[in-house]
């Protein structure tokens, strides 16, 4: 395992130092408490947006802290949800008096830790709401399971709810918008290779020269099924069919063609061309899009595609100015 790190144990702390040095104008990094927040601090009367989760998904979440998006992010160890202390400190730090929204990806660890944090916040008089992101159609949902994973739609929820909060919406309104984005979004991922966590030092699974995993998550876990390598066009069709089957795609959509961390950008554009064609075959249109690495799994090769059915409100909020390390426009 060759990784550009100083030691297995210091990866997250070192990366936080790097973020602090790279974005002094945008971010304030509390290395001690492991919290990344806006350099500008909380704004009175604005709902605070806090997210967090395991590290290894960069730029998610800390790369989305800034004007028009998150107020703070709590990075956990690699692929490990952060702890309630971080979440409580973050909520207290960003609270501008209008309450705080926790954006939580649906994983047992994230859910439980944010739950404990929310309870403790309530005890301390900080009003906290939670929205659960669970967009991954590869996971069959049922009452008896952990439910769908939260993956790519997290970026959409954070951006759009962030814009609502920035625009002065009160907490229930921000919650409504966040839940609407989640309800209208679906994701599906494909791995061409596994990833290697620094702690384990070897790939989480082994794929042969022509094998791929369909329906992967973002923690290096294998997917629903192993399959064989195909053209970009066919792989995109597998992913898009899975989305469309779960939520018929039509009209103007917001699409993210996301790289898993080690997929060259030229390949992501190749895949995006196929997404655009697929959409027009359905009478839909990629009215807004992102192509690049947004929700990654360390050094995994592969992609995920996330589609959100837009409406006028969501489009307006998507287009609103944003100024974060990883997403920036209008400012």
């Amino acid at each position, binding site marked *: 395992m060759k990784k550009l790190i100083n030691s297995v144990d210091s990866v997250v702390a070192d990366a936080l130092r790097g973020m602090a040095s790279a974005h002094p104008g945008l971010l304030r990094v509390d290395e001690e408490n492991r919290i990344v927040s806006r350099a500008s601090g909380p704004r009175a009367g604005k709902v605070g947006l806090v997210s967090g989760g395991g590290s290894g998904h960069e730029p998610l979440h800390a790369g989305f802290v800034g004007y028009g998006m998150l107020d703070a992010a709590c990075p956990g160890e*690699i692929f490990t*949800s952060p702890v309630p202390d971080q979440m409580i400190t973050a909520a207290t730090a960003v609270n501008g008096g209008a309450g705080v929204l926790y954006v939580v990806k649906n994983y047992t660890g994230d859910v439980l*830790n944010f739950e404990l944090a929310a309870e403790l916040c309530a005890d301390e008089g900080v009003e906290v709401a939670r929205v659960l992101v669970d967009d991954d159609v590869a996971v069959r949902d049922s009452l008896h399971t952990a439910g769908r994973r939260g993956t790519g739609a997290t970026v959409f929820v954070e951006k759009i709810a962030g814009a609502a909060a920035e625009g002065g919406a009160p907490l229930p309104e921000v919650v409504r918008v966040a839940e609407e984005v989640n309800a209208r979004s679906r994701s599906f991922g494909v791995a061409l290779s596994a990833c290697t966590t620094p702690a384990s030092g070897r790939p989480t699974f082994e794929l042969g020269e022509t094998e791929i995993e369909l329906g992967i998550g973002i923690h290096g876990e294998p997917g629903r099924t192993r399959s064989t390598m195909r053209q970009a066009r066919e792989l995109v069709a597998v992913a898009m069919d899975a989305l469309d089957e779960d939520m018929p795609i039509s009209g103007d959509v917001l699409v993210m063609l996301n790289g898993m961390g080690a997929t060259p950008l030229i390949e992501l554009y190749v895949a995006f061309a196929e997404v655009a064609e697929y959409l027009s075959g359905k009478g839909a249109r990629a009215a807004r899009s992102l192509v690049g690495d947004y929700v990654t799994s360390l050094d995994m090769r592969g992609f995920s595609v996330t589609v959100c059915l837009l409406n006028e409100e969501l489009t307006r909020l998507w287009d609103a100015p944003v100024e974060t390390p990883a997403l920036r426009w209008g400012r």
Partner: protein
Amino acid sequence: MDTAVFARWIGEIAAAVRADKDRLTRLDAAIGDADHGANLERGFDAVVRALADDSPDTPGALLGLVGNTLIRRVGGASGPLYGTAFREAGKALGDARTVSTADLARALEAGLAGVRRLGGAAEGDKTMVDAIAPAVRALAEAVRDGSGQREALGAAASAALAGAEATIPMRAGKGRASYLGPRSVGHEDPGAASAALVFAALCAAEAASDESRGG
């Protein structure tokens, strides 16, 4: 059993986790995200440090500190779950200075109930519950049957180990492994495997304490 036995238990867990870290991580790599060994090592190392800084004077206070430290330092699913288990067990022990096997059985039942409430997993869901629940049951039965302490703890440890092994053919209903659907079958659940270590450590701690007392 006094506070020293419980402190020894935690030390044994920390040592066992360190020794088996790679195995736990490998189990987690197969059906999860390859961090269970590192999570528990980070957690129990922190617990050992916390106990060195602040030596609680009752078993209940000690388990409470263990639970809170795990919740504050581990993260992931196992942090809040193990943390809650120890915290609830500690609460159940109240401020008694010594603990009988029967007290311990009731406390561990409370811990298990906490895990069930928080995580929502039932037996058969291929989680740590599949090791903890039979262990707690075996302990309670041994108490009911009037077994000695050593024997009772041995029964619990064996039941936990058997419970962990029994997760292999299960299809996961909770936690990350559930995302794999049928592909989760054929692998031991990492949390169940670590729960077996926890019960084995309890046995070892009791035996060692007994010996050191010349018993």
